[in-house]
């Protein structure tokens, strides 16, 4: 074969092999590391898998933050307006973490539908709500409206 053609062929073969390998690996690793977001209602209805890292969040329920007296263990409830999810965490909470504000936790569910969080994120400026939480609240709100409407219809 002509040397230039041979060089080209080598390059093409190399690229094909490498890119298919890479594509396979990327798909596999994405599957392993994609953390799905669940709303508190979804978690409590058992839609979220156990022992796999997931993200869950909502508004922190007023008065639900409980600090341990001798360590940095903390627990709190987040809500989407329909259901409350309990989250355990050990460590320092972010500056803008507060009751009545949005928070997203990353962690694993244990047997009792409680999230053992390895990380807690709060919003980072006053006007910002994470899109996941905003969506979850809206879904829950729509659902409530629908239920109210239906119950009114039923009464009639």
């Amino acid at each position, binding site marked *: 074969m002509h040397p230039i053609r041979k060089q080209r062929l080598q390059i093409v073969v190399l690229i094909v092999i490498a890119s298919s390998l890479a594509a396979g690996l990327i798909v596999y690793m*994405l599957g392993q590391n994609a953390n799905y977001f669940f709303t508190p209602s979804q978690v409590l209805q058992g839609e979220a898998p156990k022992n796999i890292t997931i*993200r869950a969040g909502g508004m922190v329920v007023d008065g639900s933050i409980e600090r341990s007296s001798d360590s940095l263990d903390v627990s709190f409830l987040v809500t989407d307006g329909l259901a409350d999810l309990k989250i355990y965490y050990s460590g320092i909470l972010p500056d803008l973490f507060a009751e009545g504000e949005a928070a997203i936790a*990353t962690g694993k569910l244990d047997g009792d539908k409680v999230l053992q969080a390895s990380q807690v994120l709060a919003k980072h400026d*006053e006007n910002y709500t994470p899109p996941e939480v905003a969506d979850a609240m809206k879904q829950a709100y729509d659902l409530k409206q629908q239920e109210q409407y239906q119950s009114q219809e039923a009464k009639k």
Partner: protein
Amino acid sequence: MIAELGHFALIIALAMALLLSLVPMIGSFRGYSSWMRLASSLSLGQLLFVAVSFVCLAIAFLMDDFSLKYVSQNSNTALPDHYKISAVWAAHEGSLMLWALILAGWTAAVALFSRSLPLVLSARILSVLGAISVGFALFLILTSNPFERLLPMVPMEGADLNPLLQDIGLIIHPPMLYMGYVGFAVPFAFAIAALIGGQFDSAWARWSRPWINLAWVFLTIGITLGSWWAYYELGWGGWWFWDPVENASLMPWLVGTALMHSVSATEKRGVFRSWTLLLAIFAFSLSLLGTFLVRSGILTSVHAFASDPERGVFMLMFLAIVTGGSLILFALRGPAMQKVKAYSGWSREVMLLINNLILVSAMTMILIGTLYPLVADVLELGKISVGPPYFNFFFVPLTVGLVIAMGIAVFTRWKSTEVNLILGKIPVPFLVAIISAGILPFYLSLDYSYSITGGLTIFMSVWLVATIAKDLIEKMGINLKRIAKLSHSYLGMQLAHTGLAICILGVGLSSAYDQIRELRMAPGDKALIAGYEFTFSGVNAIAGPNFSAFQAHIIVTKNNQVVANLFPEKRHYNAGGQVMTEADIDPSITRDIYVSMGEPLADGAWALSLQVKPFVRCIWLGALMVSIGGLLAATDRRYRRRRQSASNNEVAL
């Protein structure tokens, strides 16, 4: 009044950009040299009016003109003046204004320094830059006007600048980053002009090299500053989070790095022509994608502030037009540019090809990991975020491969190299690296255990430095005076590569050996971390210009000697009521002691984060060396002589 003047100047700038995008371009096809000559005065005029507009906005900030919506949202009378200026680019509208200003600046610079280029080429380059300006000016005026008034309800006081942004790092981080992002518009415009003309040779590659280098240097500095700022300002001691917006800045950097290397082969050997053009298109497209990701706020990220979907759609369309249009042009013209030249398996060309393959692969995997959540969301596969393990899994081995190739590449020559020559040079640096990697990790750990991350890091850094040192010694002996005889581009390369070695050292060692403890501490409590004893002596209330704070006092001792007195703060900003953590750091090259405050707990106790981070400072020190290296290479004498060479290579179009 000032605001209206600014608004008006912006509209004039748009008109000039529109003329710039049309007149010289049409002139270049019709052969009207007077039309083409208009390009440089239009470029300068555009810069003037964008600058006037920008200055007007800055004045509105300094005068606390809260009748402007943008000013009232991002400033406050109590804000110090330098932060009032930096507040200009603190949010969406002003950031775009800065974008437009910097783009006009680059365009004017090209107009001033491209006189040696053939008129047709420079006219087309400036026209393409003008077209990009049109897009941004329209975006500003139609969707993000910073001069929008709040009449008649003028607020008495502004909402204040987000406290996170009240910091010196944030004054300079966005301008540097934008200088880099927008700087890639120059090689992009160059590529488009070359594709339109259907010609691309080494004289043109030489002309574009210093521009690519400069844009790349600014981007490097911008990313470094961002990482440094995140480290000391966010209060967690992290410096890279694989956050979508960080990824958005890393992608053009990776492609820009690939471009910088491939264009060197194009200049010296005339190879990789169409590939170089493609990289130039991608570097800028990815910069636009970065702007889109940050400014549309569609991703959950530290940078995602409140946003407006309409703007996202505009940006997305702009991105589609720029990328799609240039790729179509490339598909039509690109292949014809390629010139086949033979080179053997051990040539520098092949090493540069490996460099490009690795960098582009790294970019691709980051792109997929960053966009996958978006795609999944659109396809309703669920709301996903991709965790750091995904990125580390690919990035670490790719970096190892890159570093090994870099060490070999210094010894290769253009066209072909004797295999024995290379094999003869490799063993010494390799042995030095292996031995260091085998021994040093034991000394770095507290309990004389071996860390694989530590070993791998030391191997990479020592291998790189040893190969560079060997090559330098071969080139100039041990007589340091002869260093002046080496070219700037060679020295720049070696400096940048050494900087990378130091950066890798910082990344690897701080990851392998850092000690982080989050503790509940009452006044008088002590904690022992990595041989340092931390004593929490208590908290005082203090007041700043626009905030009040609790300031903790932590005494750090080692072997009963005081190492540092650290005063981290928990600030409450008066205007927005926002709470901010200010870490305190005792820095040194070999380790940082990092202390930050969490929340107050019962009985005067506080949640405290105490960290000892070995060699973490090397990350930014190395990155700084990389930037200086890039700058040094851009000043190579070869580029200054381009005036003659360009006239020697008269190009007919």
